[in-house]
């Protein structure tokens, strides 16, 4: 699956990138450039060559491990993309922890107290969660928790005055490596608001999926049997029902995680989070072809990998699922 998806992605992004109007040479030289300078630069960047040749050059580069060099910053994409990717992964992971913890429990609660006030309340929360615009939620969070109450910082990954020196660019890991618990705490305070904003939609999806999947399992014969055996309600829910209801939840989890990694532009913008969404978005504004192409390719790659991991998890959670032994 991986190879055809990536080839497809590379062709699609390459074509779209070159089809949109606008000129990278002009973006580099600024609005003040003369037509001669723009034409000359275009030629020297190899943008005058036929598109097919440019594509072949690009793929050749990728195959030899060269993701290209940004037109704007003159730095190789492979070198540049690391910190952005780490920032986005850290944020997506935090958002997912929130989404899974609250989403699943909300769904379980709703299923357990099916057709009661609790159920309805939980589902209204879920509907609001799916429909609330991320940018609005983000701005409201900042307004209430940063500006009015001053509980949490409104933006960034860590207090800039701290002069924190990252190693892997995963700030939590770096803070632990350096044994700097003040930095760890500060990074934690910084991630809460964006993670909540980003986690709301997946939380709502997970809650809804958990509820419906749990309801289905709860009606099955073996749950009735377990209940007849006198097992406590907590164990029935969390042990016997949840495990059997987990596959569809996991599917939603996988898809949402992929979306978070690529589609966090709004959250990243509002919370000044230096992630990959903004990196690619700004590259689009500058017509920075290598960054757009390789950035999207990497996002696609991660998306596919997450879904691969989710597929493998199916088998781990449900031993009845076995790959390659049909």
């Amino acid at each position: 699956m991986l190879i055809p998806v990536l080839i497809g992605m590379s062709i699609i992004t390459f074509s779209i990138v070159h089809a949109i109007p606008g000129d990278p040479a002009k973006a580099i030289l600024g609005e003040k450039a003369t037509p001669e300078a723009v034409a000359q630069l275009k030629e020297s960047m190899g943008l005058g060559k036929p598109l097919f040749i440019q594509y072949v050059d690009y793929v050749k580069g990728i195959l030899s491990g060269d993701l290209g060099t940004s037109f704007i910053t003159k730095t190789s994409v492979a070198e540049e993309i690391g910190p952005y990717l780490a920032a986005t992964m850290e944020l997506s992971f935090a958002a997912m922890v929130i989404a899974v913890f609250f989403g699943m429990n909300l769904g379980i609660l709703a299923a357990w107290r099916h057709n009661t006030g609790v159920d309805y309340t939980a589902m209204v929360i879920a509907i609001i969660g799916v429909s609330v615009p991320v940018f609005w939620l983000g701005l409201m969070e900042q307004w209430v928790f940063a500006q009015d109450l001053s509980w949490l910082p409104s933006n960034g990954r860590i207090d800039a005055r701290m002069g924190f020196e990252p190693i892997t660019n995963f700030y939590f890991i770096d803070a632990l490596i350096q044994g700097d618990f003040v930095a760890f705490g500060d990074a934690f305070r910084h991630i809460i608001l964006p993670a909540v904003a980003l986690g709301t939609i997946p939380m709502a999806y997970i809650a809804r999926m958990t509820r419906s999947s749990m309801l289905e399992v709860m009606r099955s014969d073996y749950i009735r049997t377990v209940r007849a055996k006198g097992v406590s309600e907590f164990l029935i829910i969390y042990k016997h029902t949840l495990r059997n209801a987990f596959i569809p939840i996991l599917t939603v989890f996988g898809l949402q995680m992929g979306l978070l990694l690529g589609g966090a532009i709004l959250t990243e913008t509002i919370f000044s989070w230096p992630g990959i969404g903004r990196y690619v978005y700004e590259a689009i504004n500058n017509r920075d072809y290598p960054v757009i192409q390789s950035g999207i390719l990497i996002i696609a790659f991660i998306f596919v990998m997450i879904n691969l991991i989710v597929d493998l998890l199916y088998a781990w959670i449900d031993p009845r699922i076995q790959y390659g032994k049909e």
Partner: protein
Amino acid sequence: MNMRKSTVIGLALIFVFSSVLVACGSKDASSNGKTLIWGRGADTKSLDPAQVTDGESLKVTKNIYDTLVDYKEENTEVEPGLAESWETSKDQKTWTFHLKKGVKFQDGSDFNAEAVVFNFERWMDKKNPYHKGGEFPYYGYMFGGYKGDKGHVINEVKAVDENTVQFTLKEPQGPFLANIAMPPFAIASPKAIKKDPEGLGKHPVGTGPFTFEKWKKNDTITLKKNKDYWKKGFPKLDKVIFKSMPDNSARFTALQSGEIDVMDGLNPDDAKTVKQNSKLKLSEQQGMNVAYLAFNMDKDTPVKDKKVRQALNYAVDKQSIIKSVYAGLATPAINPMPDSIWGFNKNVKDYSFDLEKAKKLLKEAGYEKGFKLELYAPSDPRPYMPDGRKVAEVIQSDWKKIGVDVKIVSYDWQTYLDRTGKGQHEAALFGWSGDNGDPDNFLYVLLDKDNTRTPDAGNISFYKSDSLHKDLIKAQRSTDKNERTKLYEDAQEIIKDDAPWVPLVHATPGIAYQSYVKNGNFTHPLNNDKLVKMDIQK
């Protein structure tokens, strides 16, 4: 089997742990002296000033490097920088600069005449081994190309002695001094360039008030005080952090909650809040920019007719645009350049907002029943125009009253540049931010017939006036300020009468800051982001 238990316990642990952390999250970070955080909309592209054209890059390099001459604190006239004094020959082709003695680059090497020559050679000569790291766009733009090009103005730069540099020009250039005061032509350490010409953009070394410490991409750039700065007693700040925060509202929230000390790019709507907050201050200074509506005079539409263009000028209510789109943070534009630039013609009278006069002119031109016109509006905010579509809508409703039916068309910025540069528009909203405070930088660039060449026209009115061209070229060749002033004043009258544009407004750059930030140069039209004298006094 154990998955459930471990998951539940794990999640519970995370939860408890996090509550503890939130509770004891510390805020102590003020230990390292006076640190100022400047919140802005985008990150720097490169820290080699010769390679960039964007304000966000130059904002930082201005504080790391110095130029030979600098702008005065009060206005855009030129005063000594790294050069103590200078003189020009009678034919105005030779400029001799006497450099300050004892200045050192931040890497310890000496600043001298050789260093100046080295930098200019690197910029101008495409064959120079250090002509690397980018395209040096501003050099070609301000000095007519590069070594060997026909229009290249600088013939030679040579070191007369240790502290004297001599420029020989092929012909006199009026704005020469204003040009070399521009931040892209700051002098970098030859030692650093020789080591890695492409690396200067990441590890800048200049003579300026602050030295580079680190750069987290799309996040922060940290500079620290240059203890050996040649202006004794400066800078006052120990550290400066430029923080990229793309969303204007979020940036303003951060300012209000005290996370940052200064912000630029304030939403005009937030200006009122700043004024009501005693802890914040607002800089109000007419910016060195102009927002305008350009008629495409090359296209076969009614706006080819001068009377029609004048009529449309009479039918734009600039005050209403300033009120509804700029929330008061702008002044109406009369000429193509703001009055903070010398040479501004005060005697030119604007077309007042007068629908009757407009209708009369339209009738004279034979368009009593009106006509249809397509108006381009940028979809992205620009420094001189926070919301192009809103501006277009105000104009649309004004012009409807005289029977002109406007269709508004929007594109993203790169597409917009592409299409207007090729002249595909009938009329377009546009703007310009000045570079060096010289009238040539507005009038010649935006309205001379030399700049109507597609596909990258700077004059998107495609306005070709020979009498204007004569004035502008004559002024370009002269270094006599009185003569130049007269020529530019005449030029502005020609432009007003021909009406290739509706000059709309000069936007005020929205800078808001904490009241404890003192001695900022916030009202300067070009150097409002220079932090040499800025201080924090809590």
